[in-house]
């Protein structure tokens, strides 16, 4: 295990912080730099770190590949679904103004939701790609 002892302890310490930071970036894209894509990448990096230290199999137990596939699809569906919802509410595709009684609130909700979609897809696809690449060595 050698150097992994230090890595393991540091990983335990850092991973929750990285994940929280990813979520912070996700939800503060409105105010500062950041947003769904960046958050998604950071989120997946936290898991990659986990997988590096504790092994891919452990990481896959926490986040199975099948779940990741569904999440990846889900993100796209959330985004496109928001567009469809605005269409059903009488606006144009992705016209968030119709989502709430006043345009600003509508925009706010719309942006929050689609950024969430972006974050979910990006994080799960990135992680999926990493798992596939790293797990390839087994075969």
């Amino acid at each position, binding site marked *: 295990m050698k150097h992994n002892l230090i890595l393991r302890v540091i990983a335990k310490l850092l991973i929750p912080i990285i994940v929280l*930071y990813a979520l912070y*970036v996700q939800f503060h894209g409105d105010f500062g*730099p*950041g947003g769904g894509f960046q958050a998604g990448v950071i989120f997946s*990096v936290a898991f990659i*770190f986990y997988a*590096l230290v504790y*092994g*891919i199999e452990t990481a896959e137990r926490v986040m199975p590949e099948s779940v990741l596939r569904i999440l990846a699809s889900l993100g796209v569906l959330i985004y496109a679904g928001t567009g469809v919802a605005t269409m059903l509410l009488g606006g144009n595709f992705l016209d968030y103004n119709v989502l709430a009684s006043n345009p600003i609130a509508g925009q706010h909700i719309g942006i929050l939701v689609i950024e969430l979609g972006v974050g979910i897809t990006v994080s799960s696809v990135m992680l999926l790609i990493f798992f596939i690449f*790293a797990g390839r060595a087994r075969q």
Partner: protein
Amino acid sequence: MMYTAAALAILITMGLALARALLGPTVYDRILSVNMFGTKTVLLIAVFAFLSGQTDILDIALVYALINFIGVVAVLKLIEQGNFFTSGEKDEREVESE
């Protein structure tokens, strides 16, 4: 002004680290300089945030401070084990590097 001085100093350090990365000679020297370069980038961004008065930028420095070393860990893991798959816990053998 003081930020300028600090920024300049960091730039010079970055240049020195870059030179080491280019010269090598071993792959470890390069990793070392990349790591050092990462820290310097964090500092440069932090200084620039104050220089231009936009403290929002600190988030970027923060993200580098958090995840830059994961790249280094990945390199080392690869050099030691030759793949990402092995969990390392039970692994004692060393795959020759490079």
